């Protein structure tokens, strides 16, 4: 089993110059990257037709290790870059992977507008509730009253629910997984990539180095155990009351609808002009 897993993983990694990776031992980001690799492998996508785009932060370091067309952009702008890539070459499967600070704070505007447009991009948000790389400052998902290096007396702001935000902004596929439920995560990413439209996967991850330390939540293992205990699948959650769900989070596919996809719709305009031209040419010939 382990050998099978590493065979798949090695097929998609760049051996040259990029290892060892930047993440702390025990970090969940590596698991999220593994899940993404397996999702792409099950879909049997051509490596040349996959583009992975990221912003800045711990999660945003994922692309450099992956053997695809990879783009590590500026802070918060990954989705905007990805929009250009997708429009210019619609054959590419464009996947944006970044963190909660990158996608929701500095990149919040690009996030909601890409969702509204319903452009065929898969957006994976690794949510570890904190800015890891810069040293544990609070992010838009840091829960109320929790500590961060810039919230030494506890978080006084309210936080975003990324999946709710994606859904209300117009994303046509929304799912949530955790790095504990790695194989489910892989399935969700698979569905998200297959979905035609703006698809969003929130990955609950752990940052024991910053968030865990500041909030006394223990080791990486303990934090991942918390994910196991608090995750409720969407089917179970449907039978539970609001009180029962207090302090827990729902995982699985949360939302899927079908609306006209942006790049397809734009292509229709181009096709219309092409048809007109062909007719004109035929007229001229006859």
């Amino acid at each position, binding site marked *: 089993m382990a050998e099978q897993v590493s065979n798949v993983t090695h097929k998609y990694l*760049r051996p*040259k*110059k*990029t290892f060892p990776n930047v993440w702390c031992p025990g970090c969940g980001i590596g698991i999220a990257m593994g899940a993404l690799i397996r999702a792409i492998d099950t879909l049997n996508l051509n*490596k*040349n*037709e996959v*583009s992975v*785009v990221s912003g800045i932060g711990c999660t945003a370091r994922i*692309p*450099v290790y992956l*053997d*695809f*067309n*990879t*783009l*590590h*952009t*500026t802070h918060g*702008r990954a989705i*905007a*870059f*990805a*929009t*250009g*890539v*997708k*429009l*210019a*070459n*619609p*054959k*590419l499967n464009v996947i944006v992977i970044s963190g909660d600070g990158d996608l929701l704070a500095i990149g919040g*505007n*690009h996030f909601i*507008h890409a969702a509204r447009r319903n452009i065929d991009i898969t957006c994976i948000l690794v949510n570890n509730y904190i800015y890891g790389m810069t040293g544990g400052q609070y992010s838009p998902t840091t829960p109320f009253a929790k500590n961060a290096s810039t919230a030494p007396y506890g978080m006084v702001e309210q936080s975003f629910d990324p999946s709710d935000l994606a859904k209300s902004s117009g994303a046509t596929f929304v799912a949530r997984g955790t790095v504990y439920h790695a194989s489910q995560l892989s399935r969700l990413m698979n569905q998200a990539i297959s979905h035609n439209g703006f698809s969003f996967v929130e990955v609950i991850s752990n940052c024991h180095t910053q968030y865990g330390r500041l909030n006394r939540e223990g080791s990486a293992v303990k934090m991942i155990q918390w994910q196991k205990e608090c995750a409720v699948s969407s089917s179970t959650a449907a039978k539970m009351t609001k009180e029962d769900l207090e302090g827990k989070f729902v995982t699985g596919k949360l939302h899927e609808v079908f609306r006209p996809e942006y790049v397809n719709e*734009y292509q229709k*305009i*181009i096709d219309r*002009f*092409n048809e007109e*031209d062909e007719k004109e040419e035929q007229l001229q010939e006859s």
Partner: protein
Amino acid sequence: MAEIETKPKKTIYKENIPRLMQGNEACALGALAAGCRFFAGYPITPSTEIAEILSRQLPRFGGKFIQMEDEIASIAAVIGASIAGAKAMTSTSGPGYSLMQENLGYAYMAEVPCVIVNVMRGGPSTGLPTKVAQGDVMQSKWGTHGDYFPIVIVPSSVKECFDYTVKAFSLSEEYRIPVTVLSDEVLGHMREIVKLPPQEELNIVTVPKPYEPPEWYKHFEITPDFRSPMASFGEGYRFHLTGLTHDEYGFPTSSRTEIVRKLEKLRLKTMRHLDELTDVRIEMMDDAHIMIFAYGSTARAARHAIRIARKKRFKVGLIQPRIIWPFPDQIVREYLEQVDLVIVPELNQGQIIREIKRLRYRHLKIIGLNRFDGELITPQQILDKIKEERH
């Protein structure tokens, strides 16, 4: 191959037929003729006509137009599209250009070709949205953080808006660098009769594709002339792009030698080609004792002024750079030896005059003629200045 392809068969404009058009329209047509097939932008006065025209025209040629949520996203999408193989551009004005600086830095670092038309208006901040200024000359040189060497073009007529937008695309592809076209409110909205040249006569350059197989390919290869071939996403090369300082493959590096090699490459790829990057119009300078150094719409008034001044026996000539960055040091230095007075009319409180003062090696009077009330400098103002200095 990228989906977007240039289709030269269709007519973009009627060739050789005189037509009344606006500077902004000329920019849009120049872009289409140069093979631009992607535009991302955000509405801003006085540049919006470029976006409006391209939103109508691009799909006719298989191109794409998108209105993004802000200018930061616009330039990001332009860079993304360029990486995916489309010739791409955006247009904006001062406030939007400021927002773009962050990702412009990315494009300098990641060596992504693209074109930005900045139709300058009065500033700072919201300033004078409907009035002319030349306040972004230094921003176009030093706008983003870090150490880089930009190429910036300043047209001065509607015809030049067309010609130099085409040239901007060619330079941008040749050097793999973002090129800024500094138009201004007057040029953008002014109408002139223009006869556009046949499309096959345009000098259109496209960045060469790599000839080696993917496993040998270095996206940032240091070549003898510092210009590297470029593969696009989806062509099988699977390279990595980052804003971090990187090696020739594009992978982040902290090696001191590789850092220096990368940053030197950014300098040398423009500064080693100063001859090709010098585009200066020189008028009546042969026997001149007074040099007027003017660019953009100010050069129009200066041209008129020197003709009148010559009739009044003032030995005055005009130097008008059309590529302002890199600055044409060589030519300006040559003429500084010959003249004893330099007048620099600008629609700001003295920006490019600093460059000329930098080149002064002996006692020589260099004075500015500055106007920043939202109106153009008139030929009379320049004449008066000449007379004032000579009496």
